[in-house]
């Protein structure tokens, strides 16, 4: 069905986005650009077409045919379920000491992931840690959308001087390594869950803005947009009714990649000790706690559990994101 849609190839909106196309793999330290590595040069963002409702059903069918994407979906859904249900599932509280005499106890049937250096149940802490990750991932991306979409939309739709001013400021933010900027913001706001996701959001919107701008830039010359303009729709109406809905798929894909990046960023911050306030459990903090050389040597399970959790979540989101991109992308039918 998608094949029947008009396919438009838009040129490079501007030379800069090569870094975007390069994706999070290279800029992984930074909050990665929205769209991950496509199989060929040019990104999903380059190819857009007006879509209809049945697209989603179609996409779903394609998604479920992709084995990796299904694995990713299962991981992501379990991750969300675990995060939401953590207090119900966890046998112990996140800061509860099971037995202070049993510090650093290896995994067993009683404590499937062992007890940590304070005799706390690693399994329970891992479950609670998922909550922090989910909250940071989702809320920071919410903030990214909240700032990124309007900025990108204004720049893309109006172009000209507005575009110039907005994109120049974006360039400035972009020129600072993103993680560095997050660190500066965290330093400014102080540690803690809320401050962390705000900091991540305040840095991450830049990529989103570029993505949306590129979309709008390409779409605003489409015939149906011109038609809407001629029929007297205001700029806001056009943006909300026509441009935004048609930019939705790349935004969704970007979101799927943005969430794990935010999760990773939080973990990294907590790892260096400027993240979540302990004793609240966070995966990064668990990594930080367990990564003293002596612990790694004698009690590697303490480190293995949170590292595996972060890794698995990253994989899940990446698989799902890749799958989504392929499923939503017109080229997927090639």
């Amino acid at each position, binding site marked *: 069905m998608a094949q029947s849609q008009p396919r438009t190839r838009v040129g490079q909106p501007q030379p800069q986005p090569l870094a975007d196309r390069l994706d999070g793999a290279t800029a992984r330290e930074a909050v990665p650009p929205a769209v991950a590595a496509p199989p060929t040069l040019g990104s999903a963002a380059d190819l857009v077409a007006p879509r209809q409702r049945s697209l989603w059903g179609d996409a779903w069918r394609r998604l479920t045919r992709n084995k990796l994407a299904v694995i990713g979906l299962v991981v992501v859904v379990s991750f969300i379920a675990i995060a939401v249900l953590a207090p119900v599932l966890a046998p112990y509280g996140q800061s509860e000491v099971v037995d202070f005499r049993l510090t650093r106890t290896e995994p067993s049937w009683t404590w499937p992931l062992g007890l940590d250096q304070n005799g706390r149940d690693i399994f329970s802490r891992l479950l609670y840690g998922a909550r922090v990750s989910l909250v940071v991932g989702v809320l920071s991306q919410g903030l990214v959308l909240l700032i990124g979409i309007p900025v990108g939309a204004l720049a893309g739709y109006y172009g000209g001087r507005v575009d110039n001013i907005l994109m*120049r400021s974006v360039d400035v933010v972009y*020129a600072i390594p993103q993680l*560095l900027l997050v660190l500066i913001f965290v330093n400014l706001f102080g540690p803690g869950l809320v401050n962390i996701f705000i900091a991540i959001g305040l840095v991450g919107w830049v990529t989103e803005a570029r993505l949306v701008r590129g979309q709008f830039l390409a779409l605003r010359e489409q015939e149906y947009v011109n038609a809407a303009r001629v029929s007297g729709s205001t700029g806001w109406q056009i943006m909300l009714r026509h441009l935004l809905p048609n930019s939705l798929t790349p935004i969704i894909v970007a979101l799927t990649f943005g969430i794990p990046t935010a999760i990773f960023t939080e973990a990294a911050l907590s*790892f260096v000790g*400027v993240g979540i306030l302990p004793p609240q459990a966070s995966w990064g903090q668990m990594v930080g706690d367990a990564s003293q050389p002596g612990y790694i040597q004698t009690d590697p399970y303490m480190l293995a559990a949170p590292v595996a959790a972060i890794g698995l979540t990253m994989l899940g989101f990446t698989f799902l994101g890749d799958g989504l991109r392929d499923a939503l992308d017109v080229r997927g039918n090639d």
Partner: protein
Amino acid sequence: MLRYIANRVAWFVPTILAIVALTFILLKLTPGTGIIPAGAQQISPDMIRRLEAQYGLDKPLPEQFGIYVANAVRGDFGESFAFRPQTVSSIIARTFPISLRLGAYATVFAVVVGVTLGVLAAVNQNGPLDYVSVTAAILFYSLPNFVMGFLLILLFVVLLPGRGVDLGFNIGGLESWQDWVLPTVALGAAPLATIARYTRSSVVEAIRSDYVRTARAKGLMERRVIVRHVLKNALIPVITLVGPIFAAVGTGSFFVEKVFNIPGMGPFFVDSMTAKDQPMILAVVLIYGIFLAVMNLLVDVLYGLIDPRIRY
């Protein structure tokens, strides 16, 4: 093209200035000046005021900024607050090369292994080798480098009881080549995956192209076709990846350096961040900013030269 480059270069100065200004403002918004020496058990407020006066931190902000820029232009970034009286320049001169070296190793590793994997995957399309390398690539690509670092260390610990931790951690100076192996792999894994994926699809595309079909039709040996015709064309876009990968890797090794205990700029920056070592932070931001900007420009220019579809 030249005009484009000139335009970009002309934008450097205001962009860099804006970066420094932004960082400067953000730093000034946070409480404290970072002047208190680390470990100081006792220090009177009066002493803090005097130290601040000594470093001009009591002056109005615009004046402070002006002084900073004027000095920075002359290459004087001041003394590091945390390592007084050592200068920021001397510290960066010592640590940045280490980060760059690690970045270079990781880039070389990523390119060599990535291209090899990609080409092998492409010529064995849908074969077991393809399957393995695609899976490896997506695994590498999904894992942040600090998770990768710890996975490598854990692997070593489990495989080499008693010696694994030693091989995983850098103890002090980077004296032996072993010290570089794991950090290079951890840092290079993700870009490796990107390069492998690009190479694969690029080579696959080339194999299907008309000129290759023609070459085959001419009866050329398969190996000769691959080397002469496929690789030559398919690898050009891949080459353009090296620049941004080096830029990202060279400036993006905070956590790998932290995990493996490498005395580069990464852990230094994280520490100066927490110590609020203003001169240090500003200088690091400045250097990273310039480095990234130059690399990005280089990439775009290269890209424009190679890919005729791009017009500036």
